[in-house]
């Protein structure tokens, strides 16, 4: 059984992935409309404040889910949730850089055993280095007993 405090000390807040993303106008419009957005700043490219919908960063996937040497727990990881903190509008045509690190590691113990929660955070930056959003992905792994 892995010691969570040791994992936190070793892995938290260290970037393990860097990836660039192109923001395509047509795709962000389709994304917004499919979600039911009707505000023109998300659906009309002629709008003066046209931008990607605020949850768009959740769709950007890092090249790696976890650090290369991160231990496996024997169970299957499940997507437990997403969080987004938009800071600046994301405009079409811009190239974003996403840097990903483990933001939190914690456990919960239920009747079926220990569950490990891993929160990876992608910090997104525009070409000028401005921090435009954070996108968190929570993965839960039900730990398999080693016995």
């Amino acid at each position, binding site marked *: 059984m892995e010691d969570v405090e040791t994992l936190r000390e070793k892995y938290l807040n260290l970037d393990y992935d860097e990836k660039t993303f192109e923001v395509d106008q047509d795709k962000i419009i389709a994304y917004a409309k*499919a979600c039911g957005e*009707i505000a023109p700043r998300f659906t009309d490219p002629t709008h003066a404040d046209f931008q990607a919908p605020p*949850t768009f960063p959740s769709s950007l996937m890092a090249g790696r889910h976890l650090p290369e040497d991160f231990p496996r727990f024997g169970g299957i990881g499940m997507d437990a949730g997403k969080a987004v903190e938009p800071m600046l509008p994301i405009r079409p045509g811009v190239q974003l850089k996403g840097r990903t690190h483990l933001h939190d590691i914690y456990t919960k113990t239920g009747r079926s055993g220990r569950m490990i929660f891993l929160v990876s955070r992608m910090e997104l930056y525009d070409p000028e280095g401005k921090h435009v959003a954070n996108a968190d992905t929570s993965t839960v792994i039900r730990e398999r007993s080693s016995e």
Partner: protein
Amino acid sequence: MTVSTIQDVEFGEELPAFKPDTSLENVRIFVAAAGWGAARFTDHEAARKEGLPGALVPGIMSQGFLAAMIHQWASDARIVKIDTVFRAPVMVDQPHYITGIVTDINAEDSYVEIDLTVSNEAGETRVFGTATVNLA
């Protein structure tokens, strides 16, 4: 009622009901836009072969539904943070309903907290979340 400023918001206010489009056609449009083309989202039969009851609405699409509901309530609202927990699958081609309720108002800084849920026809919560919204 259209909400434009923090003065328009009442504590405990329920956002107008929102029924998202969970049709297979719409989910296919979404996953193409998002670059999430896995068959479990776009094909019921392929999803069943993976042991699922049918095709799933991606969690990020449910999150998008929640944000859209906020903008349908207050079109100029700026979402400062939205946190969603995927409790159970949202199934494609099945009706779902989204509810939202104002749980806190910070009138001084113009922030509102909203609790949000995606439920199925049986009334079971599939996704829940909270959003912090700025209404300037």
